[in-house]
């Protein structure tokens, strides 16, 4: 009897071992289409343009993307006035544009790189200001895994925005002790007529005593909001999700990246001891 059972168990184990496995495969791919990447932001509240130019690299044998400063970059104001944006040595492009930028105005960016011109336009949104920033002591998650136990209190931070008649596109970033936190992308459309409350880091981020937290709340144009939404889906909280693809391209020729246009509101919280 025991012998028969052993034979049976062995057969089941062998059968299990024969099922499912992983192996490295070679994919038949076209040559990687290297594309330029234009990553520019325009803060209409301050008239500031900042950005970088680089190139995409091979997925399977990647090298570090190198920043380029040889391209000519120009800002196109609503009235057509052109302002050159100059590069800092071996790094980013930075410039300030004079003028008044009204809600609904269209601004553009032109990049000439390796003899090819790329242009993108975007509309300036209306600013949604920050009403208040509140610090609360963390009381625990309603469900899911318990937090790591640490000595001393931890805090959550909530940012409040006033109710508006129309929906606005919000994108919230924050710095902790001067360091930009990049692991969470927070964007949403506000609900008309309702106050908006956003927990920094979507309640998955806790803050420690005496930390200095700066909140950057961008009100985005519709195009920029759509781009960041697509990007967040591609990146995914747990890896890429959904149907794979590149975010919408609004450049006049094929390129990656986006001409980000928004208005910035800032606030700060210093956490208690």
């Amino acid at each position, binding site marked *: 009897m025991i012998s028969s059972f052993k034979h049976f168990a062995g057969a089941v184990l062998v059968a299990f071992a024969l099922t*499912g496995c992983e192996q490295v495969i070679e994919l038949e791919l076209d040559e990687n289409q290297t594309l330029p*990447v234009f990553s520019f932001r325009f803060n209409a509240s301050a008239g500031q343009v900042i950005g970088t130019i680089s190139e995409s690299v091979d997925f399977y044998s990647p090298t570090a993307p190198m920043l380029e400063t040889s391209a000519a970059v120009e800002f196109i104001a609503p009235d057509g006035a052109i302002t050159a944006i100059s590069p800092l040595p071996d790094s980013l492009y930075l410039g300030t544009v004079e003028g008044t930028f009204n809600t609904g105005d269209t601004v553009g960016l032109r990049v000439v790189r390796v003899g090819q011109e790329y242009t993108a336009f975007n509309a300036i949104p209306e600013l949604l200001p920050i009403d208040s920033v509140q610090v609360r002591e963390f009381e625990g998650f309603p469900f*899911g895994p318990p937090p790591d136990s640490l000595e001393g209190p931890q805090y959550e931070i909530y940012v409040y925005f006033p109710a508006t008649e129309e929906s606005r596109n919000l994108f919230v970033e924050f710095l902790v002790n001067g360091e930009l936190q990049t692991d969470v992308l927070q964007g949403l459309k506000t609900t008309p007529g309702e106050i908006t409350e956003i927990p920094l880091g979507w309640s998955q981020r806790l803050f420690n005593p005496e930390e200095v937290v700066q909140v950057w709340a961008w009100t985005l144009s519709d195009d920029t909001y759509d781009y960041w*939404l697509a990007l967040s889906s591609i*990146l995914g909280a747990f890896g890429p999700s959904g149907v794979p693809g590149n975010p919408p391209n609004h450049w006049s020729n094929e390129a*990656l990246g986006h001409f980000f246009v928004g208005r910035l509101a800032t606030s700060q919280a210093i956490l208690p001891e």
Partner: protein
Amino acid sequence: MPMLRWLLSGCFGLLWVAHASGQTRITVSGTVTDATTGETLIGAQVYGLGTQSGMLTNGYGFFNLQVPSDCPGVSVQYIGYQTDTIEVSGTSRTGLSVSLQPYTIMTEAAVIEAEGSAPEERAEKLGTLELRPEEARSIPQLFGERDVIKAIQLMPGVQATSDGGSGFFVRGGGADQNLILLDEAPVYNPSHLLGFFSVFNGDALNTAELYKSGIPARFGGRASSVLDIRMKDGNAGKTTVSGGIGLISSRLTIETPLADGRGSALISGRRTYGDLFLNFSADTNLQNTALYFYDLNAKVNYRINDRNRLYLSLYNGRDDFDFAEAFLLRWGNRTATLRWNFLLSDEIFLNTSVVWSDYAYRVGFGPEDTGFFRDAGIQDVQIKEDFTWYAHPSHTVRFGGQWIQHTFSDVVSIDSEPAPDRAGWETALYLEDEWSFAPRWKAVAGLRAARFDLVRGPVYALNAEGELMGDPGEAADAGFGTGGLEPRLSVQGAVGKRHALKFSAERNRQFLHLVSSSAAGNPTDLWLPVSNNVAPLVADQFAGGWSTNTEDGMWSLSAEVYYKRMLDLLEFKVGADVFAPTTLETELVSGDGEAYGIEWLVRKERGDFTGWVSYTLSRSFRTFDAIDDGLVFPAASDRIHDISLVAMWQVSPRVSASANWVYHTGDPATFPTGWYLYETQLVPQYSRRNQGRFPHYHRLDLGITLKSKDGVARSGGGKTGWQAFRGGEWTFSCYNAYGRENTYLINFEPSEEDPAQTQAVSLALFKVIPSISYDFKF
């Protein structure tokens, strides 16, 4: 004008002469059943001896044939049964009950006698696939199950959506473009255990017929195909018990006569039991895990009199994966069909059906009272009337209508205001004439008028960018509706003694879309009704086919070509918010599709060694303005080459063996080709949609069936009880016999040898899967 008047007069005169001076005709009608079980025989061939008149029994085994009064008799035949001849002596014979005796052993003579297979009958079959569950039993399949859907996937023009999956593509269409009916009730998700099993228990089924083209006007609502599955009625002769015990699941079927043979009943159940072993695990999480599925089929029918018959069919199936109250995935289909067959007169057959179906799922995390859950589904209530009027020897007219109320629900537990249900009415009227316009040729011309009205639930206004504007309206106030005409035409007939031809053209309209964020599909995909923002899918298909056989009927060959155009397909836009938008309508984009191909089927019909080879060469493309700037890309169903080889060998009266080998071109996929830095994020760069391919897929399955000596002897004996149980058959099968690691998904991971390099790692679901099962019947 005088010429025209003369021409018209001549035509009418010819018609009058044809009708008046022809021989007197008589009517022979009735139902065809299995003599031992009383089971109706669907698609039995009925033809007048020495005449050109013939037909197939309908979905209830009914026939009505008009033959010349001097016809000596009407022959009734069905594969696997002895032919019966009805004598006619110049007078009509109606209300007949024709019982055919099955052959207990399929001798060569029996098959030759049963086949017949005149070319005009084969012409009717072009564009369709017919499968009986006993044929599926001969084909080795995953885990030893005998599944009609898996068997159909071995035929030309039909492809499985994924390895081991129960979803299927037909001629380049999507998996949601197939109307799957179980005794007229729609089944919205035909998959158990993520598709490794279908919901159709072969022991409960009578026939399965798939229309790939030439879809009759009485069917509608899906763009690509109709899979019409009929349950058995139940043995009206005696009580029988049959079943099977396997490694993964077991099943039991009981059939019994009712009311002294005026009716019968069937109940059939199937359940997996792998989760029962989890209770023995030392891990408490595994002890608290549920992982199973079950099916329950039931049917009762009762013959009130020669003109009235009632049927009640029920189905309940469910899948449950509940991991220790941390993750839950549960779904199920339920259907109920009440049908009344009524012979209004000797020439008019009426079927009235009331149908209810429900598909629902629950997915979520955490304890059921405090966790995050999504409950969604679709429920149908339907009434349909189908008339068949055998108006004339050359004309069979079908007409009728149906009304369906679809109710869509989608509730997320954390929503403060759960989304209200939406409901819509789908109505249709149809008219079709089957006209035998020449000897051995006929045309089937039909017109279906279909409409969908949203009658309850929110209606959303979107701007040109697809963004929500303002508060939703109410469907009852907004009055949204859409519809149109769907012409259907086919011409088919025989050329010479052996050749059959068929041409068809049709339009099909689909008012429900299945939105899925993955190519493989999963039970949490959502059915979405058309609305002011979502147009119906319209598909036009043109197809032509030819078939022939050798003079002795041993071999048959068929070839079919098709072209299909699809308008207003739906896809999620790149970066779609698939989880919590106010409405999915803001996340969808529409586009068009095109598919074309040629299908070959060579079949050995008879002998100890039978089988077939099917080869499909096809392409399927999509174009969406919002995807890749409107450039054409391959559809998920674009498998250029698709080959199936199926072989069955009756080694001896006790032993039979089978094998099938399948191959198809790797599925299209969108692979990452680069990385780029956008601000602080390292982002994967992708190729254009579906420019890459998975590795080619191929697999060999083997099977051997061994009947016990008792089982072979039992055909002449009358053993019961334990001896009858012992007289069953053992089946040993091996899925993926040479262990091909067919890619199910691809992960991109750092190389172990050089972490700076990224490699593509293929994950295969199955390697070699042996199985053993024992089937019994008494």
